[in-house]
């Protein structure tokens, strides 16, 4: 049977596209409209892209090493970490902004808080279940030599 188009793939493509836009358009735009009329100091796009790229490398490296045993807790842990959106929510809710805007922020804050609390708690709850039969003795070196070789 021929391949059928399916949505997740489309969605992925779309998000890839969006991210590329994110990277390239501002550069072009900056070219088209040089130094927008006294705008806020344009946040440093390239710093952010560097930070993004480097964190992605770290993520790939670190996640690839997570024990298979713990993939379910890992999902809930990253879930809790993605609630970092709380930072934005706090800024929007707590600043001196119009009420309607702060309301949106409050809902976002509520949602993120829920994720933080439930995410970390359930991860810990799951991890507590992983037990070894005997208390895990780390194989201690035969006896650490006293300061090996300072004569």
């Amino acid at each position, binding site marked *: 049977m021929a391949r*059928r188009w*399916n*949505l997740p*793939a*489309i*969605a992925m493509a779309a*998000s890839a596209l*969006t991210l590329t*836009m*994110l990277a390239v358009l*501002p550069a072009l735009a900056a070219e088209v409209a040089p130094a927008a009329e006294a705008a*806020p100091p344009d946040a440093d796009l390239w710093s952010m892209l560097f*930070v993004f790229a480097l*964190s992605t490398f*770290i*993520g790939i490296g*670190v*996640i690839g*090493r997570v*024990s*298979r*045993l*713990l993939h*379910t*807790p*890992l*999902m809930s842990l*990253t*879930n*809790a970490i*993605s609630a*970092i*959106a*709380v*930072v*934005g929510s*706090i800024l929007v*809710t707590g*600043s*001196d*902004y119009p009420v309607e*805007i*702060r309301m949106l*922020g*409050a*809902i*976002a*804050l509520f*949602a993120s*808080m*829920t994720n*933080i*609390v*439930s995410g*970390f*708690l*359930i991860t810990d709850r*799951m991890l507590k279940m992983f037990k*070894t039969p005997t208390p*895990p003795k780390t194989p201690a070196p035969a006896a650490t030599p006293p300061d090996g070789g300072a004569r």
Partner: protein
Amino acid sequence: MMHSIVQFAYLVASALFILALYWMNDPKTARRGVVSGAVAMGIAVLSTWALPQVVHHLWLIIAAVAGVAVGIPLSRVSLTAVPQRTALSHAFGGLAAGLVGTAKYYLWVGEGPEQLTTLRMIAIVAEIILGFLTFTGSLLAAGKLQGISWIPQRPVTFKGQNFMNLGLLGIAVALGVLLVVQPTGPWSAYAFPVIIVLALLFGVLLIIPIGGADMPTVISILNAYAGLSAVAMGFVLDNKLLIVAGALDGSSGFILSLIMCRAMNRSFTNVLFGGFGQIAAPVAGAEVRQYKSETIESATQVLEQASLVVIIPGYGMAVAQAQHRVRELYDQLVRRGITVKFAIHPVAGRMPGHMNVLLAEANIPYTDLVEMDDINRDMPQCDVALVIGANDVVNPAARNQKDSPIYGMPIIEADKARTVYAIKRSKNPGFAGIDNDLYFQDRTYMLFGDAKAVVGELVKSLAGDSGH
């Protein structure tokens, strides 16, 4: 000054998030990872709160307390409900990102058009599209997984569906581009909410055609989207901590879905395009073959004589919530000096690592949970392979039947054991919808019934034996 302190706090929090994930590489250090993550989050919250621009505290306190109040019960769900909780949580994450993006947009519209720089607008558009589609998509996924009655469980497909959806997304993106180019045109007051509505709609349409069984992979992708929307928020707010944490989350989601795909020997595209979750067509034209059913008593006797028993749990054990019974069985067998190992297939169940958590919940030491490749070496020495509600992950068709849809998937080689007992409720196939030769082979005996009940009877029978 405050600004620098907060930036420093963000840097520390980023490092702690990385360490949190790093420590998950070993069950021994994993709880330290959780602590590290929680501390990082605490630092992030408190230092943000301490910024001078945060002046209204009442709402913050109310929203935070409400969040905690809802979060605590959500963390107490039973372990079988973990997939839906995760999905729900992604929904919340997406919602938060979408709302912050919306708030920022209207705020900057109010403050004046020069605030809406190209970079900000692109990031906002990315944030709200990703955020809101994650919101409805995950909500629907959670509903499907929870089995809420008015949500169709079966995949809903219709002709032209994909083109329609693609069209919708295309419109949303096109509107987004317009907004970026001209953030304050007279029509932009309309364009922005339209994008939101389209994203919400798209999230629903994204999940409708996916069967419950492919859900874990999709949830993992949604996890990645939630992470990416946090990244986008980081670009909006010029906040590196958001970018770091979001990127960690995003890569985690993509890698986990890749791992699942690999363990099913399916390409990423195949999962997304293959329509696995759809109509499991009954295998036509096959001769009707015979299962050998067996009684609890004789199974008990064989088990008692074994010296190595390998238990292979699968999705059936999870739905039947049989893990505590399995623990009792384990105790009974171990008491008799029998070596008992659990063979854990990477995609047994419906979530990566699903079996591990369940068995850990029942206090089975994780050192007895053996990964597929390691246990397969021992299978020829295995006296009894006890398959509890697993099906696809022990299907030898994956090894020797070229035309099978699961051909090439690595499996647990239960068929190499001296005797196989298989617990399932009926003659129905598993997730992949195909017959399993294992059940027809000479040395396999079926124990029909609910996993919890059957294992319970086995335990009782063994206990009775040892009693007299």
